[in-house]
């Protein structure tokens, strides 16, 4: 018998955490191809160190559905053999994982010193004006997401804009406007890529 009045546990009004919970998402499993890729990758690490494959596993999930939901993180946890909390711990640390939907094309403008010295702030302003969204936002059609990122390791080709995984270098405001139009018209075919990359052709 207890003399305590009945207590409500974890009522929502006491929940003060500002932490945003991941979107639940529908049931998630890897496609057979991704499962095969994961199974091959995990062999690179000692058998008792499956957790080393976690970033790879998360990239696979993100590429499969565009961003990471709670269901996707649970699936990764199962693959790795760790808890879902451990997966979320990793996801929340690294900047290249998205927990919300992003546009088909993610424009990452480098904003660090060497790029800024060569006009990166003006490039960002041009993109804000052209796309009508601020850094961190996605346009209503879900085509473009604009992000400001830190040094991409290509400061000699400043300013640099990384579109998804492809680099675009030595851009000025006029050129980014042209690039956005070209992506609108031709999609991925408009990507120009890293200049070193092209020399090998």
């Amino acid at each position, binding site marked *: 018998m207890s003399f305590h009045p009945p207590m409500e546990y974890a009522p929502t009004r006491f929940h003060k955490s500002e932490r945003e919970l991941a979107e639940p998402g529908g049931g998630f499993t890897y496609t057979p191809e991704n499962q095969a890729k994961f199974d091959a990758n995990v062999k*690179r690490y*000692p058998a008792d*160190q499956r*957790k*080393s*494959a*976690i*970033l*790879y596993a*998360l*990239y696979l999930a993100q590429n499969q559905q565009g961003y990471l939901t709670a269901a996707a993180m649970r699936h990764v946890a199962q693959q*790795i053999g*760790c808890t879902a909390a451990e997966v979320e*711990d*990793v996801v929340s*640390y*690294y*900047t*290249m*994982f998205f927990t919300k939907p992003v546009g088909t094309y993610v424009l990452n403008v480098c*904003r*660090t*010193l*060497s790029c*800024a*010295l*060569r*006009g990166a*702030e*003006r490039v*960002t*302003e041009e993109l*804000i004006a052209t796309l009508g969204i*601020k*850094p961190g936002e996605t346009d209503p059609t879900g085509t473009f997401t604009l992000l*400001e*990122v*830190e*040094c*991409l*390791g*290509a*400061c*000699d*080709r*400043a300013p640099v804009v*990384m579109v998804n*995984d*492809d*680099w675009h270098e030595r851009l000025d405001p006029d050129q980014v406007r042209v690039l956005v139009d070209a992506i609108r018209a031709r999609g991925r075919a408009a990507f120009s*890529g*890293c200049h*070193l*990359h092209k*020399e*090998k*052709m």
Partner: protein
Amino acid sequence: MAYEPSLTKYVGEPNSYTLDFYLKHQRGYEGLRKALTVKPDDIIEQVKASGLRGRGGAGFPTGMKWQFVLKETPKPRYICCNADESEPGTFKDHVLMERNPHLLIEGCAISCYAIGAKVAYIYIRGEFHHVQEILEAEIEKAYRAGYLGRNVLGGGFDCDVYVHRGAGAYEAGEETALIESLEGKRAQPRIKPPFPASAGLYQCPTAVNNVETLCNVPLIVLNGPEWFVGIGPEKNGGPKLFCVSGHVKKPGVYEASMHTTLRELIYGHAGGMLDDRPLKAMIPGGSSVPLLLPDQLDTPVSFDHIQKAGSLLGSAGLIVLDDTVCMVWLAMNLLHFYRHESCGKCTPCREGCDWLFKLLARLEAGEGRSKDLDLLSGVSNNIIGKTLCAFGDAAATPVLSTMKLFRGEYEAHVREGRCTLPAGWRATHPTLVAH
């Protein structure tokens, strides 16, 4: 005497990245073949005799680092190649991996042999996706040609090289944070000791080496330590890559000896100042090191000379600043970086970087008070030396260095209530892009 490049001689050639090209023009894998004929300890001795110093930032002698790697243990040993390349102003490893990947692969194999490791992981930053594709394809070719895998070149030595992709974190470049990240955790530094040489990856003895460092190893084995010592000043031997960015006509990666001066890099290799404007200051070793002034232009770019001049060679990322650069803005720009990249483990760094950025943003917006200057140095000095890794010192340096050399600009911001040097290349509406 003209300098003969050995790391990047062929990077402009269309097929420089292929195995065939490497074998034909760069005496490819001869270093590995030669290494396998001597004892692993002899390789370590050669690298020690060459005086090779780490190219990742700290300039620590590589041979000594390898010697510390624990031998009396049943555990496996590992090489971790640091290809995180995230120090602002640094972009040299990218060129090596993309245009001369076999030099790195050979370097990894010889280093594994030297320390008794069977596996090397190349930890590459997530943004280098296109570089990774090339590197992995070339690794595959090296396996097929028998330079990697079981019984390398019939010498009874097994060696695997794997690329591990990061996912966006500057701190993953710090060696223990890199190991944590490789183990599938947040990239946060460990408490040292134990050092990676005794308990690194999976708590096994590990050597963490930069890409450029490992690329020098085949050259040392092939050409001998004397050749290496002969290039550059005493204790600063060997070929070196310099990354020149900012206000110069031809930004780029330039290979030279460490006899070269800052003046030769800026006005020679990089073609001089952009629009022929006057030079205001230089950051010689990536964003984390103190600034140098134009009267120091004749300093040779060696670890020791730059240190004597009051800065550090760091990652050899030379950022050139002309007279349009506001130093308060510069400190704000860099603290935005450090605030964003602080891993959050040590309180002085996590909280301090945020406050430094806020104070600098307020000054730059013209709302600073004169007390803020003392506050800036107070906060900076409470970060320096009070963190687990060198990130804290790196973050406070741009603030302390600009305040020391350009205090007048800080005072002018307070006095006039505005930025006193708004350059044409900066944002027209600073608030839109400030955060």
